[in-house]
């Protein structure tokens, strides 16, 4: 074997080592030196380089074990990585510079998002009296910045950046061109659907480096959940901060409420979306552990509630009262069930055999399907009776999409549990639905208002 062969093998080994979060670049350097020492000695003892490399790697033991030992000594590292500005470990300068630059770009994007929400005020549109404008545009203040950050990180190709930018412009047009008044239903559904549509545009930027790969689409689904978890955590912390700000300033006779409602809350909320996105990128493993735990915790509980509800419907023979709130409630219920399904899928090892949890999940999906069928029957009855409104039409459309998705999921899950199908099929089914959600959200935002006469 040529010396180049050995270098290539050591290079490959280093890549494996550096994938371990417990092992930093300096550790990898140190271990590499050790490996080379071992190889040199074995070569001197008469082994070929090839053999020596194999023996030396074998001697070092499994990386799992090695990184476990490192993690025991450096348990803080899993969190320390978060503080990407800290002094870079010797020999880690290249990676350190990169992560510091990422930090600065993120800070820039977050500041941009925070500033964006105050820009309309420069043109005389303050928060007071313009709630419709802000409701429709809220996602446009922050999501372009997050998409920009992700596109920068992925080094997105120019055509893709152009597509993303064009879609954001389209979103801006949809939010502001139609003459929607404060009491119109269309305004409400635009305010709900535009963020969904634009979030999926963020998804385009997220998968920029490999947009055809199903795994990347699944990563985006995971990213969505993790951003949500981080955002909630940041919001909780922000709430505590605001409570203390108000309390302490009041104690000295200063009333900070206006400053907080005009600046801290809106700017903080906009910036925290970008920060949450960055946190997920910088520190995936922490929340990767939270999402599955939440899923495992709540899947049985939700299954129990849904089954109880079905029993109650059966026993009392009451019809479901499909008012506007109820419609939204049942749509949200389906979204939650879908979320539980998605996050257990995203965290699951696709090669693991079916287990009890998969059966539980099937029960959850089936009960959700049964409830949704009842709701759908009600809605179609109402539509036939009173004619459509944008609200009902949107809710109905969502219901159908979710129903199709869940029915398909149930089928694939059943096949998987009966060992007739692969788990990966379920994963593919879910990722293929992402464009469907996007198309539907854009239809609601762009087509519904004119169709329903801006009602």
């Amino acid at each position, binding site marked *: 074997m040529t010396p180049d062969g050995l270098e290539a093998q050591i290079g490959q080994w280093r890549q494996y080592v550096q994938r371990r979060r417990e092992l930093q670049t*300096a*550790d990898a*350097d*140190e*271990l590499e*030196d*050790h490996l*080379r*020492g*071992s190889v040199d*000695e074995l070569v001197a003892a008469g082994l070929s380089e090839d053999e020596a490399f194999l023996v030396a790697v074998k001697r*070092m*033991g499994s990386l799992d*074990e*090695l990184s*476990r*030992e*490192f993690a*025991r*000594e*450096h348990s803080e590292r899993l969190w320390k990585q978060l503080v990407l500005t800290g002094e870079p470990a*010797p*020999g880690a300068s290249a990676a350190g510079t990169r992560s510091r630059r990422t930090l600065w770009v993120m800070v820039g994007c977050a500041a941009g998002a925070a500033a964006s929400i105050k820009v309309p005020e420069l043109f005389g549109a303050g928060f007071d009296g313009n709630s419709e404008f802000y409701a429709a545009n809220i996602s446009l203040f922050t999501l372009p910045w997050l998409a920009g950050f992700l596109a920068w990180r992925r080094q997105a190709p120019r055509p893709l950046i152009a597509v993303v930018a064009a879609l954001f412009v389209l979103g801006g047009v949809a939010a502001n061109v139609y003459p929607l008044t404060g009491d119109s239903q269309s305004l409400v559904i635009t305010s709900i659907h535009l963020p969904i549509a634009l979030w999926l545009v963020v998804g385009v930027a997220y998968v920029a480096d490999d947009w055809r790969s199903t795994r990347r689409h699944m990563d985006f689904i995971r990213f969505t959940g993790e951003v949500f978890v981080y955002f909630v955590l940041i919001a909780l912390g922000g709430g505590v901060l605001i409570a203390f700000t108000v309390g302490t300033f009041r104690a000295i006779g200063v009333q900070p409420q206006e400053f907080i409602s005009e600046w801290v809350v809106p700017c903080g909320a906009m910036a925290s979306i970008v920060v949450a996105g960055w946190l997920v990128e910088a520190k995936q493993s922490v929340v990767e552990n939270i999402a599955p735990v939440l899923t495992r915790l709540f899947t049985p509980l939700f299954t129990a509630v849904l089954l109880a509800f079905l029993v109650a419907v059966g026993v009392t023979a009451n019809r479901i009262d499909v008012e506007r709130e109820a419609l939204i409630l049942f749509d949200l219920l389906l979204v939650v069930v879908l979320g539980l399904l998605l996050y257990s899928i995203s965290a699951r090892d696709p090669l693991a055999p079916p287990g009890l949890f998969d059966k539980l999940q099937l029960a959850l999906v089936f009960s959700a399907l049964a409830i949704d069928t009842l709701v759908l029957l009600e809605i179609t009855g109402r539509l036939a009776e009173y004619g459509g409104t944008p609200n009902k039409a949107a809710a109905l459309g969502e219901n159908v999409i979710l129903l199709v998705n869940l029915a398909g999921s149930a089928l694939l899950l059943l096949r998987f549990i009966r060992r007739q199908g692969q788990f990966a099929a379920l994963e593919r089914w879910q990722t293929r639905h992402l464009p469907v959600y996007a198309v539907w959200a854009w239809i609601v935002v762009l087509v519904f208002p004119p169709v329903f006469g801006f009602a």
Partner: protein
Amino acid sequence: MKVAKDLVAASATPMVLGILAEGESYGYAILKRINELSGGELAWTEGLLYPLLHRLERLGHVESTWQSVTGERRRKYYRVTEQGLAELAEQRRQWDTVVDTLKELWLGATVRPQEGLA
């Protein structure tokens, strides 16, 4: 004979400090030295050695520097500190007590000669 894991772990600190008291050294050489001294009986893994070195560094018992000696690779060398030497002396006292006690016990019971650890 394989020395039990607990015993290896417990004796690792004084051994590393002892080796570094002879002069500054790096991971692979320390492992080799241990191998030599124990006649290959002490099976140290990298997973034991490097985290231990990092812990000793964190505690201030050793210092490390990246050095490039001419004709050699860039390496992380470890050097024992004053505090490390004090720790070594303290550990030595403790191990002497343990070893003396065991010797006392076993030499009284059997005639087989024992190898001291210290």
